[in-house]
Each structure stands twice: as structure tokens, then as C-alpha cells.
């Protein structure tokens, strides 16, 4: 337990001034603008928006600048800011099927209708440092080869799994006559275990990318019987609609860039269901492909209980995953060790000294026998 201490105000002020100086770095080098961060470090911005759980690229870029590029600190800043704003309702469910596709790949079907669109990706790069970026001036942006430009427009594409499920080998994401339920919102009410699937997904979407990536990796290496395939991965813009109380019908309020991942997993079947492929779902702001894939893999692992699979590993344990996935909570708890624990530690020190005295006394007594 930590204790309150007084004093140190001057030292704290100076430490913050020094932090601002460190953040600015060498003043002979041009200062980075928030706009530059938003435009030129978009993947860092995407991560802050996802885990900060607020879609606003400008705010996320500002948070990154203020936090000297520390993603977790920036996420904390964005989370703190969100608590100052009122809630303006809920959007209509985003229609990712109507996404303006800018990237769409499948690891399971090579001949998916609409084709595979690589979009802007680091896949297939050689991961060799590009020293032209280091040289004075920018590396030239090579124009797209017009020869390869397809005249065919990329229309809204139906989802691969829905389309290729004529045989019923893949589970459906909803029954034909199923009505919508209002999902619980973990920003309004604490998570109770076992948590419903909607709440688990909300938690994972704002979960720490590294934590989820590692759990996914574990699930694929044998900690849980997952056998995943990337059914479909798509990125692009989706319109946001809401129904204002004044109007009573849905209006578009803007759009946002999303990445969606559908994993297909083996399922051996049980008493009630024949063997079929099951699905794990991931959705993320921006071009956060690793995040969307990790969410989908962990989302599937956490369905173990509902699908009657044996829960043997931490990545299948809802409480383990969901209560440790949040980087703001995790960082807060680990960081609090830096606060004064002087009294606590003093008492433990006393206890250890006493125990050692007692043992020494007992040994002496033994030797004197």
C-alpha cells in the first residue's frame, strides 16, 4: 500500500519542465507538428485511437506528440480526455459490407468474388532499411504503374464467409429471424463474468495490441485448439449513421477507416452440432491489421465455453483475458509501484529482521545444546 506524502512541489515542477525540454529535443531541429504526426505516422495514430477507444485522428496525434511518442501514455491521455465529454447517443451498427474496399485479402479462398486487393501494405516488402529515407530530402514516391490499373471498379463486396457458406459448413453470424439486442456497454457498467460476446468484443477492441498478439500466438502454438485461417481481412471507409431524436430517421455524420478480420477455425462438433468451421471476429479503427487479427483470434479462443470446448489455458479464460487486456489499467497498476510505499516497506523490513533474529536465536540455542 502506498501512502500520501507532502512536499517536493518544486522538484515536481522542475521535473515537468525538464520533461518538456527532453520532449522538444535538439532545438536546432524543426519541431514536429500534430498535423505531420497525423499524416505521416498514421499507424501510431491508429493504435492510440483503438486503445484510447476514441476515433479522432487529430486528438490521437496530439496525444502522441505530448507523450513523446509513448503509445501507452498517449492512450492514457486520450482516455482521460474522453471522460470530459458528454455522450451523444449510439450510432447505427456500422455496415462493413458496404465498405469502400481499399484492401481485401483472404488466406482461405484464392478466387474470392471481387478479387484480392492488396492495397497499401508492408506485406511483401523485404524489411531492408531504406536509406533513401535517411538521406537529405524524401525518397521519391513512385507513381502507380498505370498499366496495372484496373478499370473495373471495386464495388461494395459481400463478405467472403457469408457468400461461401452455401453448404452450411461455416457457422452463421445470425439466424434469419433474429432480432437485435441492445449490447451492454462496459464504459457504463462493469464487466460481469461470464461476459456476453458483445462485451467481450468491446473489451478486446480497446485491449492492448501486444497482449492480444501474444495470446493469439499462444493459441496458435497449441494453448487451445484453435487452427485458424484468415477467412477475410478488409480495410476501407465505412459511413457512420445515427438517428437524431429531432429527425427520427438515420443521417450520415461522417465516415471512418476500419479494418475488419474474420477468422475461420476448426470445430469438432458436439452433441448438438455437427463438425463445422466456427468464426472469430475482429474490428479495429484505421489500418490496424495486426490488431484486428489478434482480436479475432482471441475472440474465438474466448468462445471455448460457449462451444463446449474444454477451458484449459489462460487465453480461453474470460476473466484472465478481459481483466488484464486494458493497457491503461495495467500501466496504472504497475506504475503505482513508483509511488511511496515507504511505510509498507518499512514494516516488511522490520518483519524480516525479526524473523532472522528468531532463526538466529533458535540456531544458537540448538548449537548450545
Amino acid at each position, binding site marked *: 500500500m502506498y501512502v500520501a506524502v507532502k512536499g517536493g512541489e518544486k522538484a515536481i515542477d522542475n521535473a515537468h519542465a525538464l520533461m518538456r525540454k527532453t520532449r522538444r529535443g535538439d532545438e536546432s531541429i524543426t519541431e514536429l507538428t500534430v498535423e505531420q504526426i497525423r499524416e505521416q505516422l498514421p499507424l501510431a495514430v491508429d493504435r492510440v485511437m483503438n486503445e484510447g*477507444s476514441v*476515433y*479522432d485522428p487529430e486528438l490521437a496525434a496530439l496525444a502522441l506528440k505530448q507523450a513523446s511518442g509513448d503509445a501507452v501514455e498517449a492512450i492514457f491521455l486520450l482516455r482521460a480526455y474522453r471522460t470530459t*465529454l458528454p*455522450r*451523444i*447517443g*449510439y*450510432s*447505427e*451498427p*456500422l455496415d462493413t*459490407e*458496404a465498405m*469502400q474496399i*481499399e*484492401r481485401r485479402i483472404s488466406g482461405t479462398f*484464392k*478466387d474470392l468474388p471481387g*478479387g*484480392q486487393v*492488396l*492495397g*497499401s501494405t508492408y506485406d511483401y516488402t523485404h524489411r531492408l532499411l531504406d536509406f533513401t529515407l535517411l538521406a537529405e530530402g524524401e525518397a521519391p514516391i513512385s507513381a*502507380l*504503374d*498505370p498499366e*496495372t*490499373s484496373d478499370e*473495373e*471498379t471495386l464495388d461494395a463486396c459481400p*463478405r467472403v464467409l*457469408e457468400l461461401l457458406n452455401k453448404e452450411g459448413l461455416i457457422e452463421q*453470424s*445470425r439466424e434469419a429471424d*433474429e432480432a*437485435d439486442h441492445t*449490447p451492454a*456497454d462496459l*464504459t457504463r457498467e462493469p464487466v460481469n463474468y461470464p461476459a456476453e460476446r*458483445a462485451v467481450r*468484443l*468491446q473489451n478486446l*477492441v480497446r485491449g492492448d495490441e501486444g497482449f492480444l498478439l501474444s495470446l493469439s500466438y499462444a493459441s496458435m502454438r497449441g494453448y487451445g485448439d484453435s487452427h485458424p485461417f484468415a477467412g477475410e481481412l478488409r480495410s476501407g*471507409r465505412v459511413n*457512420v449513421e*445515427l*438517428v*437524431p431524436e429531432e*429527425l*427520427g*430517421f438515420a*443521417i*450520415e*455524420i*461522417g465516415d*471512418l477507416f476500419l479494418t475488419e478480420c*474474420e477468422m475461420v477455425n476448426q470445430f469438432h462438433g458436439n452433441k448438438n452440432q455437427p463438425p463445422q468451421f466456427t468464426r472469430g*471476429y475482429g*474490428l479495429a479503427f484505421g489500418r490496424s491489421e495486426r490488431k484486428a487479427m489478434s482480436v479475432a483470434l482471441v475472440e474465438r479462443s474466448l468462445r471455448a465455453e460457449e462451444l463446449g470446448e474444454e477451458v484449459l489455458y489462460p487465453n480461453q479464460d474470460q476473466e484472465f483475458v478481459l481483466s488484464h487486456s486494458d493497457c491503461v489499467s495495467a500501466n496504472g497498476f504497475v506504475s503505482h509501484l513508483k509511488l511511496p510505499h515507504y511505510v509498507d516497506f518499512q514494516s516488511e523490513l522490520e518483519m524480516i529482521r525479526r524473523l532472522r533474529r528468531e532463526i538466529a536465536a533458535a540456531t544458537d540455542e540448538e548449537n548450545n545444546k
Partner: protein
Amino acid sequence: MSVTSQQANAELTPEQASRKRWIGILAKAELKDLQQHWQALVLPAAPEYQFIRKPETGLTMLRGRIGGSGQPFNMGEMTVTRCALRLASGTLGLSYIAGRSKEHAITAALADALLQEERTAELLESALINPLDEIQQAAQAERMREASSTKVDFFTMVRGED
């Protein structure tokens, strides 16, 4: 299959349908494009209005669907700015705009009101809404063109000689 709520799906009157269209175009316009076209408008008179709701920024919880088409879930929030105002004639204009720009929200609400006024509807439609729509469609077409240059068709790999 894509599913929207019943409320969103309700049949719209022709007036509601056109209002829905311009509200969407105003909301999705880049602020600089909106400002540029707004300032170039030659209105019969400077619009007089009062705020019903001053521009206010808040958060809208975005909902996704599990599996893309299943049950809704709360995905995360988005900054949204809204505004409502009344023209001297009594017409109400409103706006809900993604982001934090109060200027965007005021201009969009004012345009929404003027688009409902007989005197100004046609002018705003032709000098504001249509050009903004064209800009948005051109930007989308450009993104699609770039993306389609990265289209692979693993199926058409040449195997042997034909």
C-alpha cells in the same frame, strides 16, 4: 447480410430523403471545401438565425456487428459535434458532424435550414451540395482507382503453354 435497424429503414418521404442526402454530404465534406463553397455563395440576404443548441462536442458510441452481420456490439467512441438553429422564418436547421469542428457544425446547420427554404434551396443545391458531392465522389473514385491497381488475380496465373 447487411442489417440496419427498423428505425433507419423506415420509409422516408421525398422531403426526408433529400434532406438525408444533403445532411450526409454536408457532414462528409472536408471543412476547407465546405468553407470555400459556402463563402462563394451569393445569398439574397445574410441569414439571420438564433441557436436552439449551440455547437456542442461529445462522443457517439459506434456500434459494430459481431461477425459483420450478427448482433450489435459497442466498438468504441467517436468525437461528434452537433448544433441546432432557427432562421428568422422559423425554419430549423441541425447538424451532427464527426469530429470537433464547431465551424463545420454551424455552417452545416445553417445550410440545412436554408436548403429547406424555398427562396434559397435551389441555389444551395446547385452551388453547395452538388459540388461537394462531386468532390467526395471524385476522391472516392481516386481511392478506388489506386486500390484496384493492387488487385491480384491468383486464378489467372499462366500454367504451361496455351
